[in-house]
C-alpha cells in the first residue's frame, strides 16, 4: 500500500492545466489526463501559479462552500488575485472595531506589537543561524552578535514610542523598523557569505537568486496570512502601519511581519547554506526551484513550534494570532506577537 497522505495544498503550475470537480474530489487534468485527485475534505488551499490554466465554476463553488481559498500567483510569486467566499466574513463587530482602532491607541499598540515581534524574530533568526558558528567561525559569530545587539537597541527605542493615533507615530515606527531591517539583512549577508552573492534586500523585481527566493516565499506566505485574517473576520485591506491604498492588503502586510523570519527567511537561508542549487531562468527562479521552495515552506508551516506553553503547527499559530488580533481590537484580550525559538 502506497502513501495514504493527500496533499492539503494543490499547486497548479503547468500551462494548460484544468481544475475540475468530480463527485467530492478536486481533479487536476493536464492535456486531458487526470494527474491528481484530492478529496475536498483534505484540501486547505489551491495555488495557481501558471498562465493558461482553467477552472470550472463547480470547482470554485465547492471550494468556497468549504472555505478553501484559491490564490493566483504571478511567475515572480506575487499574488494577483484570490477567490474567497464573500460570506465568510460575518462579524461586523470585529470590522467596526478594526476601523475604529485606526484612530485610537489600539492601533498604535497593535503596530508596536507587530514590529516588536518582527524585531525579536529577526534577532532569533540571526541567533539560530549563528549558534552553529560559535565555535566554527568565532569572528563571524562576533560580527553577527554585534548586529544582534544593535537590533536590540532599536527594539528598545521602539518600546519608548508612544502616541494616541497611528498617524502621529507612523514615521517613528517605520524608521525603527527600517533601521532594524537594514541591520538584519547585513546579518543575513554575513551568514550567507561565500554561499551566495546577496546584494542586499530588494523588494519587487529583484533578479538575483536570494531576493527572488525571498520574494517568492513571501508571496506564498501572504496568501496564507490573508486567509487567516479573513477567517478571523478581519478586513485584510484595512491596515495600521501600512497606509490605506486601494487594492493594497495593508493588514496582511502588517500582520505578516512577525512571520516573515520564522517561516520564509529560515527556509531560504537554510536552503542556501545547505548548498541546494538555485536555478534561474531569464531572471526568474526556475520552476523546479520554485517548487522546491514551496515544498520546504509548506513543511516548515507543518512543523510544530512552542507557543503559549504548548506545541502547535506554525500554520495553526498564524490562525490563532489572527483571531487574537480580532479579540485585541475588540478590547477583549491583549495581543502578544509570536516569537520563534532559536
Amino acid at each position, binding site marked *: *500500500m*502506497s502513501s*495514504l497522505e*493527500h496533499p492539503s495544498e494543490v499547486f497548479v503550475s503547468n500551462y494548460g492545466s484544468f481544475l475540475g470537480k*468530480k*463527485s*467530492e*474530489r478536486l481533479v487536476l487534468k493536464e492535456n486531458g489526463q487526470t494527474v491528481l*485527485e484530492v*478529496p475536498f*475534505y*483534505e484540501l486547505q488551499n489551491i495555488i495557481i501559479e501558471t498562465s493558461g490554466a482553467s477552472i470550472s465554476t463547480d470547482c470554485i463553488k465547492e471550494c468556497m462552500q468549504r472555505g478553501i481559498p484559491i490564490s493566483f500567483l504571478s511567475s515572480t510569486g506575487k499574488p494577483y488575485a484570490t477567490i474567497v467566499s464573500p460570506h465568510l466574513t460575518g462579524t461586523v463587530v470585529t470590522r467596526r472595531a478594526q476601523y475604529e482602532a485606526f484612530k485610537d491607541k489600539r492601533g498604535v499598540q497593535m503596530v508596536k506589537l507587530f514590529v516588536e515581534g518582527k524585531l525579536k524574530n529577526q534577532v532569533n533568526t540571526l541567533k539560530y543561524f549563528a549558534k552553529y558558528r560559535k565555535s566554527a567561525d568565532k569572528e563571524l559569530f562576533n560580527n553577527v552578535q554585534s548586529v544582534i545587539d544593535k537590533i536590540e537597541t532599536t527594539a528598545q527605542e521602539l518600546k519608548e514610542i508612544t502616541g494616541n493615533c497611528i498617524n502621529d507615530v507612523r514615521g517613528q515606527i517605520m524608521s525603527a523598523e527600517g533601521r532594524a531591517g537594514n541591520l538584519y539583512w547585513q546579518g543575513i549577508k554575513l551568514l550567507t557569505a561565500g554561499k551566495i552573492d546577496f546584494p542586499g534586500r530588494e523588494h519587487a523585481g529583484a533578479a538575483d537568486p536570494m531576493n527572488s527566493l525571498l520574494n517568492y516565499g513571501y508571496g506564498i506566505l501572504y496568501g496564507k496570512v490573508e486567509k487567516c485574517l479573513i477567517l478571523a473576520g478581519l478586513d485584510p485591506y484595512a491596515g495600521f502601519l501600512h497606509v490605506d491604498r486601494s487594492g493594497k492588503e495593508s493588514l496582511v502586510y502588517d500582520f505578516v511581519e512577525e512571520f516573515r523570519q520564522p517561516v520564509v527567511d529560515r527556509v531560504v537561508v537554510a536552503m542556501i547554506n545547505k548548498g541546494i542549487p538555485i536555478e534561474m531562468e531569464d531572471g526568474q527562479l526556475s520552476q523546479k526551484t520554485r517548487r522546491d521552495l514551496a515544498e520546504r515552506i509548506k513543511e516548515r508551516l507543518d512543523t510544530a513550534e512552542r507557543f503559549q506553553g504548548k506545541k502547535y503547527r506554525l500554520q495553526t499559530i498564524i490562525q490563532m494570532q489572527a483571531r487574537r488580533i480580532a479579540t485585541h481590537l475588540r478590547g477583549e484580550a491583549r495581543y502578544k506577537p509570536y516569537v520563534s525559538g532559536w
Partner: protein
Amino acid sequence: MKTFVIYDIEEDRIRNKILETCRDYGLEHVQYSTFFGELNHNRREELKLRLKKTLGRKNGKILVFPICDKDLKLLENICNFPELPPDA
C-alpha cells in the same frame, strides 16, 4: 484509525457510487472492491451512513472495519500483479 472498506455489490451503478464515495473520503483503492485509508471516528460514521443509504435495499454487502496499527503490521502482501488494479 486505519480502516478497510470491503464490498460485494451486484448492481454496477450502485457499486460505482460506493467506489466514488470511498474515494471522496480519501481512501485508497487497494484491490477490486477493497479500499483502505485513515479515517477518524466521525468520518467513519459519516461514511457508514452514506454507504448504507447508497446501497439502500439493493443486493450487496459492505464491511467497514477499523484496524489497529499493531494488527496492521501483521498484514501480508502476496502479490503477482505488477500494478494495482485498474479502476473497477
